């Protein structure tokens, strides 16, 4: 009997131990997690930002002052110490995020999340993310100074990791039950690849090939024009390009493969984009140039940005950093300021590959058989067996699609040619911008920058303003890369690159301002082929019209423009609808909604109801217009919104206006009515559920935690106006991820804010403390410390000292 009792209690004890010590499903290991001595409770605290910490390999003490926003101001004696300290301090506040993003980049999420992430991981491996990161490292190694700094940064991160124990590791590690690994230069490279993917891997080649086959060339050109009529490009239209003596690549006489593809890999968020602008001293109320930048990205917690000041005796620079990368990415020093928007150039193309046989060791090229190579991608999966995925490589790049992945033919596949695979030392651009003193330094710094192509805005205390569209850009023949190309035809390869000095740019233009909002970089007069891969068409015109509207602009004007919710898109369609739509069949409830939107002033304000109706209506109308695209087993991308509105207005009787499902033949004004009635249902349902349909409630902007927006660590129902097409591009979970305004006085005066907080710890009050101020359009004066001994507005000071 007593043995039985013993065995029973033993089994019970072991069961309880196992049950509380093991991660079961999505729940953390309960005992481990709830333990107040080591578990999550230990993260319920603000960060320690005082005292002295000794760090291996520092050459001199480094002082870190924290201001009231928890922004660290790092003062180091030399650049190696500076980047080591940047690594340490960034890890201190953002370690989990840094590692998670690089795991995401490398296709290693299955390692921590299990097989739910397997498809994602395979896709990233097949995109060649690791391949690109490896190539970038080779380039970084060619620049010993950059390499030294990147290594110093890694050592800094690792010094921080070395201070951690079970108690102090960031919360998410406890939640998912794993441990941080050492930081490496590969991880910095992967982080830069993550950004490159986010900003330069948008393309529609396979979808467009399907559309070309389905609709024919004439219809295709109507749906996807190279230029829109209202083009207000980044580089002013009157720019003289006669200095360019390189010719566009001549178009070869050859056939394109018209294959059919059912499913393609995930593309980056179509709204990834940004605004930037600068006015010259002559156009500024104070006589100093003023510059602004607001990158529009996914709204996440921890935020993609981390604000810092970095200083050595030779330079002081401040602005937004990317956790994982060195230096300031969007910011200013005592001489210059800069910021980026995405150039949205087509730098991803696809090639059809024909293999000699099933062994896939050779593929057809230039009438011969060329050898392939391969990378075995080892994908570790939490709680399951490791998966090996062999990816074949051609001279174009990885054969992403083959019979093992979204394809079915053992003897063919589609290879990706992507600028992200071509190694480059993009890190150097930012390091050089950080220490830049004038226009020439800026131009020299950005020369190294190959991908993702960016519109670099610039202003200096010397009084220059400029904007370069910088990236390594293939000199394509007209139409090259719009569709799937023939991988065996050498004429379909990228023949050369546009010489860097011929990249479109403008310095001190007559109009007194420069700006970009992801629109078309140039007009038709630029001699190289620039494919319209989804250029912005609304924000740019609002911005440029604003700067054309008066002579002088102030920082207050800049703030107002950042927060401008004027809905140009709605204003270009609704008046046409109000003229043509037959309203006789509207019910009284519908009529009320109709009256509300009819009296709208096109301001997408949080407390208005009309923008809610517009949002619902446009979404219905857009999908109804393109019902022809709702086909199974063929990947298609619908035309852009600008062209949709253009056709609704100018081609009201086009075949596309017909709804295939119905026996009647619809025209655009029928679509207006049908979609309005559908939208009314949506709005009335929302009203019934929520009591109102004010725009702030209907749009319900949220900032989501990186782990699938876990509600506990996310912020919901943030009252912010605008939509994806307004200058204040705040969409549901996407928008201005950092807002900066810099006046180039001596020293510069800057404002900044972002929808998050400096801390990556959900237990810190600095985790999301800026969100409410961001939503109402407030800014913080950035404390640009000119020397390290002042203590004004400093909350606390920490010292890093060399350890013996």
């Amino acid at each position, binding site marked *: 009997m*007593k*043995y039985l*009792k*013993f065995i029973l*209690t*033993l089994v*019970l*004890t072991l069961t*309880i*131990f196992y049950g*509380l*010590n093991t991660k079961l499903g999505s729940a953390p290991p*309960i*005992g*481990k997690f*709830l*333990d*107040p*001595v*080591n*578990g*999550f*409770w*230990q*993260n*319920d*605290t*603000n960060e320690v930002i005082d005292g002295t910490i000794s760090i291996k390999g520092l050459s001199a003490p480094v002082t870190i002052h924290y201001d009231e926003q928890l922004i660290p101001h790092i003062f180091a004696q030399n650049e190696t110490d500076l980047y080591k300290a940047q690594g340490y301090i960034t890890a201190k506040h953002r370690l989990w995020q840094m590692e998670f993003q690089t795991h995401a980049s490398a296709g290693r999420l299955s390692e921590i999340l299990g097989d739910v992430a397997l498809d994602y991981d395979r896709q990233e491996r097949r995109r060649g993310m690791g391949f690109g990161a490896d190539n970038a490292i080779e380039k970084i190694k060619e620049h010993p100074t950059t390499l030294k700094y990147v290594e110093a940064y890694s050592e800094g991160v690792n010094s921080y990791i070395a201070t951690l124990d*079970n108690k102090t590791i960031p*919360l998410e590690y406890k939640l998912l039950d794993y441990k941080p690994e050492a930081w490496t230069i590969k991880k910095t490279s992967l982080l830069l690849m993550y950004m490159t993917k986010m900003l330069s891997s948008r393309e529609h080649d396979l979808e467009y090939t399907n559309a070309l086959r389905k609709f024919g060339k004439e219809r295709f050109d109507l749906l996807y024009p190279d230029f829109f009529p209202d083009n207000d490009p980044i580089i002013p239209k009157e720019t003289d390009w006669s200095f360019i003596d390189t010719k566009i690549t001549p178009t070869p006489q050859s056939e394109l493969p018209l294959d059919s593809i059912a499913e393609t890999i995930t593309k980056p968020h179509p709204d990834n984009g940004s605004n930037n602008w600068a006015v010259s001293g002559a156009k500024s109320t104070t006589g100093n140039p003023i510059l602004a930048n607001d990158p529009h990205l996914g709204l996440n917690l921890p935020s993609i940005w981390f604000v810092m000041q970095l200083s050595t005796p030779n330079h002081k620079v401040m602005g937004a950093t990317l956790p994982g990368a060195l230096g300031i990415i969007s910011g200013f020093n005592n001489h210059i300021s800069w910021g980026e928007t995405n150039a949205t150039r087509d730098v991803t193309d696809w090639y059809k590959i024909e293999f000699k046989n099933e062994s896939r060791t050779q593929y057809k090229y230039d009438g011969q058989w060329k050898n392939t190579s391969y990378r075995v991608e080892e994908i570790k999966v939490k709680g399951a067996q490791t998966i090996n995925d062999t990816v074949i490589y051609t001279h174009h790049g990885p054969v992403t699609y083959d019979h093992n992945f979204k394809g079915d033919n053992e003897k063919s596949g589609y290879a990706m040619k992507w600028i992200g695979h071509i190694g480059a030392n993009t890190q150097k651009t930012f390091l050089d911008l950080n220490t830049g003193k004038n226009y020439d330094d800026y131009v020299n710094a950005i020369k190294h920058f190959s991908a993702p192509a960016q519109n670099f805005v610039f202003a200096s205390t010397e009084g220059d303003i400029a904007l370069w569209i910088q990236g390594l850009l293939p000199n394509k023949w007209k139409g090259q890369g719009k569709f799937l190309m023939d991988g065996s035809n050498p004429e379909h390869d990228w023949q050369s690159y546009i010489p860097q000095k011929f990249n479109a740019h403008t310095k001190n233009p007559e109009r007194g301002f420069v700006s970009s909002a992801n629109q078309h970089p140039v007009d038709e007069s630029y001699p190289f082929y620039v494919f319209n891969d989804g250029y912005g068409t609304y924000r740019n015109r609002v911005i440029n019209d604003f700067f054309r509207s008066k002579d002088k602009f102030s920082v207050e004007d800049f703030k107002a423009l950042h927060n401008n919710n004027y809905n140009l898109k709605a204003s270009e369609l609704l008046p046409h609808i109000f003229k043509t739509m037959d309203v006789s069949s509207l019910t009284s409830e519908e009529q009320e909604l109709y009256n509300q939107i009819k009296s709208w002033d096109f301001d997408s304000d949080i407390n208005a109801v009309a923008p809610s109706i517009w949002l619902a209506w446009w979404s219905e109308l857009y999908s109804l217009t393109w019902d022809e695209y709702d086909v199974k087993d063929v990947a298609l991308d619908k035309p852009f919104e600008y062209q949709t509105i253009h056709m609704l207005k100018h081609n009201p009787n086009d075949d596309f206006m017909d709804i295939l499902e119905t026996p009647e033949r619809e025209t655009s004004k029928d679509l207006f009515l049908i979609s309005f009635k559908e939208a009314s249902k949506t709005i009335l349902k929302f009203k019934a559920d929520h009591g109102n349909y004010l725009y702030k409630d209907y749009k319900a902007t949220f900032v989501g935690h990186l782990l699938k927006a*876990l*509600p*506990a*660590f996310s912020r919901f129902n943030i009252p912010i106006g605008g939509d994806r097409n307004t200058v204040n591009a705040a969409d549901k979970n996407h928008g201005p991820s950092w807002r900066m305004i810099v006046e180039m006085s001596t020293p510069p005066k800057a404002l900044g804010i972002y929808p998050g907080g400096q801390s990556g*710890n*959900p*237990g*810190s*009050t600095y985790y999301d403390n800026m969100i409410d101020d961001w939503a109402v359009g407030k800014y913080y004066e950035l404390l640009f410390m000119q020397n390290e001994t002042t203590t004004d507005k400093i909350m606390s000071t920490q010292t890093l000292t060399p350890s013996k």
Partner: protein
Amino acid sequence: MRKSNLINFIVTILLVAILSQFLPWWSVMVAGFVSSLFFSLKKVAVFFVPFLAILIFWSMYAFIITNANDFTLAKKIAILFPLGGNPYVLILITGIIGGVAAGIAAMLGKQCSLLVKR
């Protein structure tokens, strides 16, 4: 309270206070086991005395930490689990989880002590 119960209670708390400084969460199980091995109790007290000791220890510990930080993270974890965002429920559950683990380990300790005695 009987004297033996009180002794076991105090010993459990003392043990866990020391052990938890260098052992992971299962220090509560070790504490429950050891105190029961040497300060044997009877019937339901075998489970409930260490249960209560750890419940109080973990709950108090958790409360002191999170109270100092305005319950910032506790409120969020109480949404994650989900407990309606109530940090006090989370504190209580934390105590109960620790208590159950300790109580069951104590039951094993009691059985071991019986095996050794005869």
